[in-house]
C-alpha cells in the first residue's frame, strides 16, 4: 500500500488569493478569506442550553453577536448560533468547545456544518461605509448596522449573514455565505471594489 501524505483541507480561494502571514496591522482596505479558520455552527433543540452550560455568553436577542475568550458568537435564531474564532486571538477555547460538544451525549443541538458550508470573508478598512452599499441593499449606516449587529439578508447577490466586527478598531464586516459561490463572490468584490486588496489567512 502506498504511503500517503497527511490530508490537508482545501478552500475554493486557495489558488487565487495570496497567503498572509498574520492579521494585517495597517488600515488599508482589504478583503480577507478567513474560511480555514475554526468555527462551529449549532442548531436545533438543546443548542442554547448546552452553550449556557459551557459558560458561553449567548447574545440575549437574535441578530446580535457577543465576544468572549477568542470567540464571536452570532445568534441566528432562538436555537441557532455560529461561533467564529477571533483571528486576533488564540483559538484554543473554540477548539476545546468543539471537542466538548463531540463528547457530549445529551441534548446539545445539531452540527450545522458551518465550518464547511460557508465561505467566511472579512471586509475591512476606512472605505467600508462606502463599500457596503455596493454589496447589499440593507441599511448599513452605523445606527442601523452597528458593532455587534447580525443581519441575515442578501448580499453579493445571494443569501448571506453579515456581522459588524470592527476588529482592532478598524471598521470591518464579516460575511458568511455559500462556499460553492466563493469564486463568484471574489469576482464580484473585485469588480465593484477594485481598490480592496485581497488575501487569505489560515489558522
Amino acid at each position: 500500500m502506498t504511503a500517503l501524505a497527511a490530508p490537508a483541507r482545501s478552500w475554493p480561494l486557495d489558488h487565487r488569493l495570496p497567503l498572509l502571514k498574520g492579521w494585517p496591522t495597517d488600515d488599508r482596505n482589504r478583503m480577507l478569506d478567513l474560511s480555514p479558520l475554526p468555527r462551529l455552527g449549532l442548531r436545533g433543540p438543546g443548542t442554547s442550553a448546552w452553550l449556557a452550560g459551557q459558560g458561553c455568553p449567548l447574545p440575549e436577542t437574535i441578530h446580535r453577536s457577543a465576544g468572549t475568550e477568542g470567540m464571536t458568537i452570532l445568534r441566528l435564531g432562538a436555537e441557532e448560533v455560529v461561533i467564529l474564532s477571533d483571528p486576533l486571538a488564540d483559538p484554543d477555547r473554540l477548539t476545546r468547545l468543539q471537542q466538548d460538544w463531540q463528547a457530549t451525549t445529551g441534548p446539545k443541538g445539531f452540527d450545522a456544518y458551518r465550518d464547511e458550508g460557508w465561505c467566511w470573508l472579512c471586509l475591512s478598512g476606512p472605505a467600508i461605509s462606502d463599500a457596503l452599499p455596493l454589496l447589499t441593499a440593507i441599511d448599513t449606516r452605523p445606527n442601523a448596522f452597528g458593532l455587534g449587529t447580525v443581519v441575515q439578508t442578501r448580499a453579493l447577490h445571494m443569501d448571506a449573514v453579515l456581522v459588524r466586527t470592527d476588529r482592532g478598531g478598524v471598521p470591518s464586516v464579516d460575511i458568511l455565505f455559500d462556499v460553492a459561490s466563493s469564486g463568484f463572490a471574489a469576482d464580484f468584490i473585485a469588480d465593484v471594489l477594485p481598490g480592496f486588496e485581497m488575501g487569505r489567512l489560515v489558522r
Partner: protein
Amino acid sequence: MNNRLGNGWGSRIDRNASMAFTFEGRPVTAHPGDTIASALAANGEWVLSRSFKYHRPRGVLTMAGQDANTLVQIGDEANVRADLREAAQGMAVTPLNVSGSLRRDRGRIIDRLGRFLPVGFYYRTFFGPGKNSWLKLWEPIIRASAGLGTVSLTPARRHYAKETRHCDLLVVGAGPAGLAAAITAAKAGADVILVEKEPELGGALTYARFDANAADAACKLAELRDKAAAAGITVLTGATCNGRFADNWMPVLQGDRLIRIRAAELVLATGAHEQPLIFRNNDLPGVMLSSAAQRLMRHYGVRPGQRAVVYAGDRDGYLAALDLDDAGVRIAAVVDPETEDRDGLSDVLIQRGLTVMRGCRITEAQGNRGGLHLKSVEIRDDNGTATSLDCDLLVVAGGYTPGYQLALHAGARLTSDDSGTRFSITGMPPHVHLAGAAAGLSDLGAVVASGEIAGTRAAAGLGLLPAQDLPAPVQARWRRAVPSQAHPKGRDFVDFDEDLQVKDIENAIADGYRELELIKRYSTVGMGPSQGRHAALATARIVARKTARSLAEVGITTSRPPFGPEKLGLLADTTPERYRHTALHAVHQAAGARMSPVGAWWRPLAYPGTAPMSDAIRREIRLVREAVGMLDVSTLGKLELRGKDAATFLDRIYTMAHARQPVGRVRYCLALNEMGSILDDGVAYRLAEDHFYVTATTGAVERLYAEMMLQKTLWGMEVDIQNVTAAFAAINLTGPHAREVLQRLPGSIDFTREGFAYLDGRSGELAGCPVRAMRIGFTGELSYELHLPQSHAPALWAALAQAGAEPYGLEASRMLRLEKGHIIIGQDTDALSTPDELDMGWALSRKKPFHVGKAATEQRRAMGRKRQLCGFVLPGGNDAGIGESSLVLSNGQPIGHVTSFGHSPTLGKWIGLAYAAPEDAKPGSQIRLRGFSATEIKAPVVALPFYDADNTRQEI
C-alpha cells in the same frame, strides 16, 4: 469667433487651461468646466442639431438639458445632452438627424413640404401605391431616416455601478429652497442626502440675480453653501433623481452609477421650468430662454449674442436684461406685453438707457440665409402696428411651470388657474414635502423660508423635532404668462421635439380628438425627449381655447417615471453571471476537463486531453465498465434530517418505507407532489435512529427542501431539516475494480463484500478523511458514493487517483446510467409523470397509510394511462436523425417523445427511452419515431435495463 466674456463671468470654467475637441470634424477650443454646448457657443457655433421632422436647425434653448435641441453623438454614445456634458480633450462630437452636413443638411427639403405632412399624416399615408408598398417601399425609407442617435453594434465596454443607500431625509434640488431644507433638517440631527443635477450647489442662485441688486443673491448663495458644508450633509452633485416610487424609494443617476435611495422623508425642491414663447420661427438658433442666456454668461462666460431683444413675459425678463447689459450685450429693446409696469423694474432699465416697449408682443422671428441663425424679430403692439428690430439674440422670459414631475410620481395632482399662471400641487402623500419654486414661490425670501419649513416638517416626521403647526409658506406673486396665438403662416412650434405647431394641435382637435390624453397620442405632443416640459401647458391652453373649456377642465397630462433619460446600462443587470464550483473544480481544470454549466454549477463533461470529445467519452465509458472511474457528484442535493420525528417525516414525504429502515442501510427515495407527479428522487442513508442523510437531484433540491419545510410546519413534526448540499462533496467511485481501490487506502471502514453489502451505508475514515460511504448503483457496476466535508475532497480525490482510479465526466455518466435503464429526473420525467408511467410501482409502499401524493396516484391510476416510458433500440444506424425530443407517433399523431438517447459503446447500438402509447410500450412491440430530418422509422421496444439485467455486476 470668440464669444467669451471677461473675468467676472464664467464661474465654472478654468481660463488658465484649454483643451480641444471636434464637432462634425471641425476643431473647437474649450476650457475645463465648459460643456460641449457652451464651448461651441463660445466658438460661434450656434447650430447643434436638426429637428426630428422638418430638419430645421436648432440650437441652445434651455442650457439645462431640458430640451432635445442639444442632443449629440459622442463616438458610440448616442443622445448626449451637449448642454450638460462636460467637454473633454479629443472628444469627437457629431450632430444628430443630419443627412450630409449640419449646415447643408439634405433633409431640410422636408421643411418646404410641411403642408403634405399634417398632424397624424402617417395614419393615412404610406399605404400605396401598391399592396405591399408599406413593407417594401416606405418602411425602409422611414427606418433609414428615423431616430436620433446611432447605436453601435460594437460598443466600447463601460462599467456601470449600482449601490443602495438609506437616509433619514432626501432633498431633491440644491437651489435655495433645497439647501435651506437640508440645512434645517441636518441641524435637527437628521441624516440628509442632498441631490443636485448640476455640478454645483445653488440652483438658480448660481446664474440668476433675483433682484436688481445682484449682490444679494450672491451673498445668499455663499451663506447657504457655507452652512451646508458645516452641516454634515451628504451631497451628490451631477446626480438626477429620476423618479419617486412607493415609500420614498428613489433612483438617482450619477453618470454611470445608479444609486437607489430609501428615505424616511423626502423634500422636493425641484424648482420650476421656464417656458418658451410661441410665435412664428420660435425655434431659430439665437432664440433662447432667459435662464439659458444667464447660464451661458454666469456659468461659462459666453456672450449669448451681440445685439439682443428681451421678451419680459415676467419679471425675470427685466433681470435678464440687466445681466445682458452688465455683460456688454447691446439691447435693442425689452418687450413687455403688459401696458403697466407691474414689476417695478422698468425705471431701472430706462435709467441705464435701455428701451422698454410696453403692450407689445413678439409675432415672428426671421432668420438669416438658410435659417441658421436669428437676424431680426417682428414686434406688434396692441393696435397691430409692427416693428422690426435687428438682433442675433432673442431672450424669452415666458413664465414658469413648477417642477411637478416627482410630485406627480408620488401621487400628487397639478392644477392651475384658468390663465395657467398660478399652479398648485395638491395631495402630497405623507413623508413628502414640497418647497421653493416647485411650490409656486418666486420671491427669494419666500423660497428660502419654504425650504426651512419643509426641513422642519421632515425633521418632525423623523421625531427629531416636536410636531409643530407651521405657518404655510408665503405665497408670493406668481409670474404671469401670455396666452399663445397661432400665426397664419405657421412654424409657431408648440413642441420642439416633435416639430408640432399650433395648427397641428388645432387640427387634431378638428379631427375629433377633444381630450388631452387622446390629442397627445394622436399628435405625439409631449412624447419626445423633453416629455412635455415645454409643451404640456401650451397644449392644454390651445385645447381649452378650441374646445371652449377652462384649463382646469382640460387638465395637464400626468407625469410618470422616469423623469429624464436613463441608459440601459444603468437598468441592466450588470452583475457577473452567478456560478458555483464544487471543491474539486480546480482539480478538474488541472486535469484538462471540458467544463459545462449545469444550472449555476459547473461540472466536467469529460476529460478529453487532446483527443476528440467523442473518443474521450467512449474511453471513459470503457474505463467504468472494465476498470474503475470516479465522478465528482458534489452537486447532488444533500439534506440532513435529524430529530425524533425524522423517520416518520421521511415516511410521509417519500413513497417507500423509511420508518423501519435499519440503521446503516440505504434506501431509494421517490418524492411525489400532491398531484401524484414525480418531484424528485435520491437515496436515504440512516445514520442513527433519529438521523438520516438524504440525497436529491442537483436541479430539484431547492424545491424539495422548500416542500419539506412547508410540510414539516404543517404537520408540526420535531425534525430539523438542513440543506447541506454545499457543505458536503461527493465522489462516485464505480467499476469492477472499485473495491480494490478503496482497500488500498488506509481507513476504518470494512469494504469487503461481506462487510459492505449492496445498499449498505458506512461512516468512518478513509485516507484520513471523514466519509459517509453508500454502496448504491447508477452505472450498473460496483459503485460507492463517498460523501465527505467539502474541504477534504481534493485530498480524497488525490488519494483515490493514487490508488488507481481515473476521472470520468458527465457525458459518460449519462450513457452508463442509460445502459442501466435509470431515469434522470427532469429529463425522463416532466410535471405530469407518474410512477406508473415509469413502471415504478415497486417504489410505492402498499403498506403505508399515507405519503404525499398517494391519493392522487391512486386516482390517476383509476383514470388509466395515456403514455408509458419504455426502452427502445434502433435496428441499424441513425440515418433518420433520431435524437432527444424526437416525436413518438401513434396512428400518425404525436403521442410522446424521446427523452434519452445515444449510442452505447458497451452494447454497440443506439438505445433510448421514450414515452409511447401504453399498448405500444411493451417489450417486443414497435414504436414509430420521427427523426429531425422528418424521416419516420419503427424502433423495437425492449425490456429494461439494456445492460446486466440480473444486476450481477453491481452487486458483486
